[in-house]
């Protein structure tokens, strides 16, 4: 089976829907707050009440322009909105204000890196356009009715569509991760898949590697995490390969990912062909962004992940891989830089951030900002190691406790009396006591059994509850034993 699979290449295009952060909806002044009482954030406009008219949110529009520029897109000379007509109860007007043939922007690209050994790969962005979100439908278990909440209807939504440049589920995952990083840097969205502020659909087909002809495309929906996207694509690629291998045809259809059962199933649809009857939205006027304004927005874009990674390599001497990982999240990158300002060994910072800290954050599903460990706390911990106040091993324990309880590492060390005994006189007293009751070991050592020393060090550590500075113990012991 593995060999068969390798004969094939997957061709994937992704369609990301992103809720833009704004105080108000795309075409009316209702709040965009998540999780409010059903239908409490609605007005005649977002309910599509007869007679109501849309007026575009300036903030949402320029956020969209910002994203488009960050994704290296061209901005359309004349931007127009269109109506996409279809009937669905989450769509208050039974059409969605979207963009068809003159979208906000087109022809962009971003770059992904899939692992330390792989190079950059360009993923072209076909278009980025602005539209309105739909409401939410609830289907109570066992009921013969459905419920509609229009709070989400009209929230500004960005559609980001790639060209079919993605050739593996892992690349899809990497693309999403990179896209999310860019969006986070721009601070234009929560990018929270669980809350639905970022959603992803995929188109996938397979073909014999090295051939040009695209296979029949299947659309995948209902993935709720980036990992879900990867799993769904993996499943779907296998399913399609198996079909082709058995000489069967792939049906062009939409399939839903079932995360619990880990499989895709065809979506039930009416057999009526979709015909969205796009036409220019007559209730909105066209939009145009001056070249000078575009350039200004471009200049004012924040430093984006790729540029930041490059800078981290050159400025802090991080490896390309480390720099990429650290800059993969804005919070992490900022945290690193805060540490780097007050601590010179940048490799140490990177190792701790990418190692124990990331492991803890992932396990607890937290971000670095959500734990009460400030960059100066972390650097304080590094300093204690450097000064020999605590051992590296102990530092890890302290770090975990600090992250869990939100207590400063220094305080933990202090409270638990963990600082190493580096007071020579005090240690000499302990050493003398240990030597006095371990004459045999002393004899062994003097006879040349060098590992007797390890035993004696262990006894000193035991007597000091592990707080003795091991290096110092070593020196004192050897001196006492007459080396």
């Amino acid at each position, binding site marked *: 089976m593995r060999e068969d699979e390798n004969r094939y290449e997957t061709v994937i295009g992704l369609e990301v829907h992103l809720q833009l952060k704004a105080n108000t909806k795309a075409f009316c002044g209702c709040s965009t707050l998540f999780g409010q009482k059903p239908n409490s954030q609605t007005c005649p406009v977002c309910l599509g009440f007869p007679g109501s008219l849309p007026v575009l*949110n300036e903030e949402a529009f320029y956020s969209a322009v910002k994203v488009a520029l960050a994704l290296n897109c061209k901005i359309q000379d004349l931007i127009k909105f269109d109506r996409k007509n279809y009937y669905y109860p989450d769509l208050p007007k039974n059409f969605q204000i979207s963009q068809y043939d003159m979208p906000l922007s087109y022809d962009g690209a971003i770059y992904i890196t899939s692992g330390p050994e792989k190079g950059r790969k360009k993923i072209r962005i076909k278009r980025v356009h602005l539209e309105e979100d739909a409401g939410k439908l609830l*289907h109570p278990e066992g009921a013969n009715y459905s419920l509609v909440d229009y709070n989400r209807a009209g929230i500004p939504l960005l559609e980001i569509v790639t060209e079919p440049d993605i050739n593996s589920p892992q690349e899809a995952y990497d693309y999403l991760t990179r896209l999310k990083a860019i969006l986070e840097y721009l601070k234009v969205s929560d990018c929270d898949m669980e809350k639905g502020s970022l959603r992803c659909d995929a188109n996938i087909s397979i073909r014999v590697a090295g051939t040009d002809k695209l296979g029949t495309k299947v659309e995948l929906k209902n993935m709720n995490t980036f990992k879900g996207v990867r799993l769904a694509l993996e499943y779907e690629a296998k399913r399609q390969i198996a079909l082709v291998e058995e000489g069967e045809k792939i049906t062009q259809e939409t399939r839903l990912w079932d995360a619990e059962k880990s499989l895709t199933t065809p979506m039930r649809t009416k057999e009526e062909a979709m015909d969205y009857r796009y036409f220019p939205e007559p209730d909105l006027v066209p939009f145009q962004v001056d070249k000078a304004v575009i350039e200004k927005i471009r200049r004012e874009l924040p430093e984006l992940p790729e540029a930041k990674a490059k800078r981290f390599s050159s400025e802090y001497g991080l490896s390309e891989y480390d720099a990429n990982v650290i800059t993969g999240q804005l919070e992490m990158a900022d945290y690193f830089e805060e540490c780097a300002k007050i601590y010179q060994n940048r490799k140490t910072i990177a190792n701790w951030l990418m190692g124990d800290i990331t492991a803890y954050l992932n396990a607890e599903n937290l971000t670095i900002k959500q734990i009460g460990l400030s960059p100066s706390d972390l650097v304080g911990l590094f300093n204690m190691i450097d000064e020999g106040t605590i051992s590296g091993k102990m530092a890890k324990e302290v770090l975990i406790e600090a992250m869990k309880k939100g207590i400063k590492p220094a305080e933990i060390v202090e409270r638990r009396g963990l600082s190493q005994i580096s007071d020579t006189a005090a240690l000499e007293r302990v050493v003398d006591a240990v030597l006095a009751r371990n004459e045999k070991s002393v004899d062994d050592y003097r006879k040349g059994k060098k590992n007797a020393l390890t035993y004696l060090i262990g006894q000193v550590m035991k007597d000091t509850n592990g707080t003795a500075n091991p290096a110092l113990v070593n020196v004192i012991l050897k001196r006492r034993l007459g080396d």
Partner: protein
Amino acid sequence: MPLIDKRIVKHVALLSRLELNDRELELYSSQLASIIGYISKLNEIDTTNVPPTSHAASNLKNVFRKDVLRQSLDIKDVLSNAPARYDNFFKVPQVIEGK
């Protein structure tokens, strides 16, 4: 080829979420055929290189609103016209999943 026939009218009715009985289908097919026959007159005009006008106020551009909150409707007003509701939701006959 007729510009419009019963098959097309049926399809258009489906897209419009309208149900036509046989009599209506017959009537609308013939009426629409004559209307479409008439409006096809537009083909007499050469419109090569003519830009479309989708707005009467064609020089209007960039009409925005500021991202400032406005009072939403009172939930009671949102639902006061609802043919059916449940709690604060609009209630509709079951939706068979799948757009």
